[in-house]
């Protein structure tokens, strides 16, 4: 069973993940793949205790890519969370055969353009998105289970030419 959600979200673990998707899919494990969080002991401790009843691992991108296939063989469901599109691309380049990614929350920052209410992208994001699409990774935009998933290409013309 293992991977039941692959999500790109700059908040990593938060309410939509733990409450909305967690109640719907009931994961046994959450893997946070993020170099900054993995290198910060306090951040590891905070994230590790953030989802009571769920085992949380905080790994760097390379380590997460290395364990991706062994996790796939484990019993019970798992969520994979990455902070942004370049990080997701780095995991795929490092060898993680991720079939699809949900763009769940990429908030505004200077230089980023609005795609919808919760996804803002800049040129680097779009290059990473294009590279993922070219590798056959499906990219869908969806924040919570009750919202309709939309392909990134259908709502962001710029990613088609990036």
């Amino acid at each position: 069973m293992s991977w039941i959600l692959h999500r790109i979200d700059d908040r990593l673990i938060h309410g939509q993940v733990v409450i909305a998707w967690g109640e719907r899919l009931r994961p046994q494990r959450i893997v946070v793949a993020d170099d900054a969080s993995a290198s910060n002991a306090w951040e590891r401790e905070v994230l590790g205790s953030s989802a009571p009843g769920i085992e949380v691992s905080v790994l760097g991108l390379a380590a997460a890519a290395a364990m991706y296939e062994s996790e796939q063989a484990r019993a019970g469901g798992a969520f994979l969370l990455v902070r942004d599109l370049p990080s997701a691309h780095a995991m795929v380049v490092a060898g993680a055969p991720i079939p699809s990614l949900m763009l769940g929350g990429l908030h505004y920052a200077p230089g980023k353009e609005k795609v919808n209410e919760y996804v803002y992208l800049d040129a680097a994001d779009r290059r990473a998105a294009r590279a993922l699409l070219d590798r056959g990774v499906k990219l869908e935009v969806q924040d919570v289970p009750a919202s309709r998933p939309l392909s990134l290409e259908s709502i962001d013309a710029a990613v088609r030419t990036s």
Partner: protein
Amino acid sequence: MSARVPALLVMHADLAAALLRAAGTVYGPIEGVNVLSNEGQSRAQLEGRIASEVGAWPAGGLVLTDFWGGSCHLCGAAALHGRGELVIVTGINLPALLDYLHNRDHYPVLELAERLQKKGQESIRVQRGQPA
């Protein structure tokens, strides 16, 4: 009498502002409590705003949030690193907020946080209807 413990409410959407407004209808005019919403904020942005608020509290204070594991809690937790005098209380409801307002001048930070936890938990009760 202790020095007043400052508090910051950080919650989803408009909840912090609405909760503070509701508390005001029971308590009266409220001073010295700021509110933040997580709406439209990235993790880094919300962490920065919380850090800026609690940076003005040299003697510490309380970050009051809605639920454990949400972005408000986790971004607040980032601000606690190296600040043992700061405490987060999650699951804040109106009774807990009112208890804070009535007691913020009477307890040190950690004792007040533990009091709010108890008050919030005790305020959730079930009253069954009488069968016909």
